[in-house]
């Protein structure tokens, strides 16, 4: 009988009145990948943070190789070989990638480290300059750097908290290979996700969390529907997204149009290079691309968070190229930003206060409660500080701006990132419905799946240029072509 590397014994954790973990006991063996499955807010991240010494459990303890330990800081967890890659990249924005990694490993940014780092980045196929400042990276790139950082530390237990879920598929496979290789060499992996299919693919064992309790532990080979059943308690919601019948756009003139747009990144290089596109009312257009190809800059330039160097942005025919973002929002342009934590919500305010700010008209208590109920924000108390919510629920609060307004134009950046399947379907439906009721929707995404489901036109962006538009009722049939263009163009 192999001894577990780590055991979690009867953990309890409460935040104020919310029970995040309720009597959780688990074991992780050397060489295995243990998947922790659960919907948004089920306590997955709390568990990870306790193991990494970020939170202190109210009751219960952790055993490593049989000896009980208490971590009161990540430094202590790290000294035992436990490393966490969290949902939200833990990097210092003002430092370069190399400096960040050196700082994390407590070494100097030496030539040797630079070489190792470039090697691993090369293997992953990401040609990022390691002297680049972190603040210039896209969210996905930051996540990748965060992962590489931890891999270089050669952990004994690697906790991956939703950190690869949103990587482009090819990259994800490469990363998972590293993780698997790592596990076969005797390291343990705790893989936290809400994506059932992905979980089934990678895991050796599966522990399902629901509302802070372990509701089931399954061995490899368990079927996906059993996992779903355990995760949500039912399977009824799982009606796939039905493609809405393509309607003729109501208006000929576009609600949003972008003409020959050029936008520079933080280093004065063109991040968006001569992009033109237009979205009519009732239309859903998606711009797809691997992270770091200019979607972020394009979205920010359209909404006014970033300066436009050349070209024009028109909203309902009026030029808005140099207007402050707030003015554009008041004119009916609603933007769902990439990073929910920093731009999507005000973390110090309550859920109700955030929603009040989103709404361009007065919100009654009923409207507010309806939005919370529809999005299934949990806990559902509107007076709770957003900082106490889990990542997925914070994204839901950020997305509530779609329900609280009747926007002319919606620009959404990876809106379903961080959401579990159920919430994902809800948000994609919401975008569909907005288009049906006459809004123009521009989806900026790295996820082909969601793009082919809801859009009528897909543009693929590579190196700041839209290299090809795909159009037509059967976008799904182009899926492989689209993928090819994204990766190889």
């Amino acid at each position, binding site marked *: 009988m192999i001894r577990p590397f780590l055991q979690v014994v009867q953990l309890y954790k*409460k*935040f*104020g*009145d919310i029970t995040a973990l309720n009597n959780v006991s688990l074991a992780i063996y050397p060489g295995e990948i243990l998947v922790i499955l659960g919907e948004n807010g089920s306590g997955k991240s709390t568990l990870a943070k306790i193991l990494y010494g970020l*939170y*202190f459990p109210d009751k219960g303890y952790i055993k490593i190789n049989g000896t009980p330990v*208490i971590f*009161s*800081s990540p430094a*202590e967890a790290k000294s035992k070989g436990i490393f966490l890659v969290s949902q939200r990249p833990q990097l210092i924005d003002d430092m370069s990638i190399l400096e960040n990694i050196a700082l994390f490993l407590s070494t100097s940014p030496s030539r040797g480290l630079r070489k190792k780092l470039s090697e691993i980045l090369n293997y992953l196929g990401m040609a990022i300059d390691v002297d680049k400042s972190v603040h210039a990276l896209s969210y996905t790139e930051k996540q990748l750097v965060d992962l590489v950082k931890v891999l270089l530390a050669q952990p004994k237990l690697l906790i991956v908290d939703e950190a690869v879920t949103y990587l482009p598929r090819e990259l994800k496979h490469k990363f998972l290979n590293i993780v698997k290789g790592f596990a076969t060499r005797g390291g343990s992996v705790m893989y936290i996700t809400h994506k059932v299919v992905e979980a089934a693919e990678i895991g050796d064992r599966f522990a399902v969390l629901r509302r802070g309790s372990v509701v089931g532990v399954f061995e490899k080979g368990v079927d996906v529907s059993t996992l779903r059943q355990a995760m949500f308690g039912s399977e009824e919601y799982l009606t796939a997204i039905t493609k809405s019948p393509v309607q003729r756009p109501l208006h000929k003139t576009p609600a949003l149009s972008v003409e020959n747009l050029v936008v520079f990144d933080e280093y004065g290089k063109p991040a968006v290079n001569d992009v033109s596109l237009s979205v009519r009312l009732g239309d859903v257009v998606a711009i797809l691309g691997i992270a770091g190809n200019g979607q972020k800059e394009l979205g920010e330039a359209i*909404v*006014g*968070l970033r300066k436009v160097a050349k070209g024009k942005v028109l909203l309902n025919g009026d030029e808005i190229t140099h207007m*402050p*973002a*707030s*003015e554009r*929002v*008041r004119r009916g342009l609603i*933007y769902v*930003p990439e990073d929910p934590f*920093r*731009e*999507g*919500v*005000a*973390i*110090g*305010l309550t859920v109700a*206060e955030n929603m*009040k*700010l*989103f709404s*361009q008209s007065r919100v009654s208590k009923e409207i507010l409660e309806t939005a919370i109920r529809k999005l299934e924000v949990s806990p559902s108390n509107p007076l709770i500080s957003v900082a106490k919510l889990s990542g997925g629920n914070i994204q839901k609060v950020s997305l509530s*701006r779609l329900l609280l307004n009747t926007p002319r134009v919606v620009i959404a950046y990876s809106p379903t990132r961080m959401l579990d399947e159920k919430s994902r379907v809800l948000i994609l439906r919401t975008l569909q419905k907005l288009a049906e009721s006459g809004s123009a929707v521009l989806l900026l995404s790295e996820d082909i799946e969601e793009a082919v489901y809801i859009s009528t036109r897909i543009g693929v962006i590579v190196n700041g240029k839209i290299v090809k538009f795909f159009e037509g009722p059967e976008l799904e049939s182009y899926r492989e072509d689209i993928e090819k263009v994204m990766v190889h163009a």
Partner: protein
Amino acid sequence: MPKVAIVKRELSKTVATVAKVLVILLGLLIAIALTSIITGASMELAGITLLQGFLNLNVFVYISTLLPIAVGLSIAFSASAWNLGAEGQLVIGAVGATFIALYTPFGRQEVVAPLMALLFASFLGALWALPAALLKMARGINEALTTLLMNFIAYHMTNYLVKGPWRGRAVYGYPTTDMIPVQARIPTVPGYSFSWYVVVICVVIALLMQLFLYRTKVGIALRALGSSPRFVELAGISSKRLFLIAFLLSGALAGFAGGVKVLVYHGKLVEGPIVGSGYGFTAIMLSWLGGLNPLLLIPASYYTAALYILSFGLQIGSAAVGDALANAIVGSLLAFILLADFLTKYRLVIRWS
């Protein structure tokens, strides 16, 4: 070697409040004990001096200046508008009130005079804050530095006025203006130099600003501005306008306090450092003491005011410790509040290994 770690803790609001009050009371007890040990006075005597600090009506003298400034600063600081120039804005407010009272026809009209003077004082206070805000918005110049430096300009401008063109004819060469007309003064409580009217206005201001910050859209957005200007922009609210509002409001409230000092306390304009007497700086600390919450600032300003009086009481009263010791005691009482705040948010884990 013992290992010490600081760990976050989550307490419910009631528990945290009770804990804070207990720690503050404990601090007071320690202060009494310290005083009696050092001076040899009995515990009772030390206790009475301390109690007198809290029961003395003169607390309202300090509250009526400190509270409005701190309320204004809380608004500015919640929006990350680092206005360190309340002192100068107060002094310029005092100049404004004096100007209305002495040099305009309003000065001799009852009721109108003090109201006009306070309004103009607030206006000048806001105006004094404006350049720093504009420099920040147009050129990104750090507002903490500009506002801090503006304090000294305000001091010296006021000195120039009272030593030069505004020096009174009946002041025997002292650097002050003449007394302002009786009609312009705000009636004080007999035997004290504060006015109930002003105290009530100050409390009302605190309540209104609490509603503003927590109930109105602009106020809520102000509180979000500090953490993310981009978030605020995406909610359709101009971050520049919010910054300006926060700055001007804090300037106006400091100016108002300056008006109060002239109309209630001094009765004339005196040299800049005397009008200001550091209230603009004390209010910075006070606003953090109250957790940038206008409602909590009411008890916090009372506490701070009581400590002012206590410090005097300890020096001249029956306990008669020196001023250094008095300030040390007052300082440790303030430190206790910070400690209480820390202990309700974090706990220390010490292990021997």
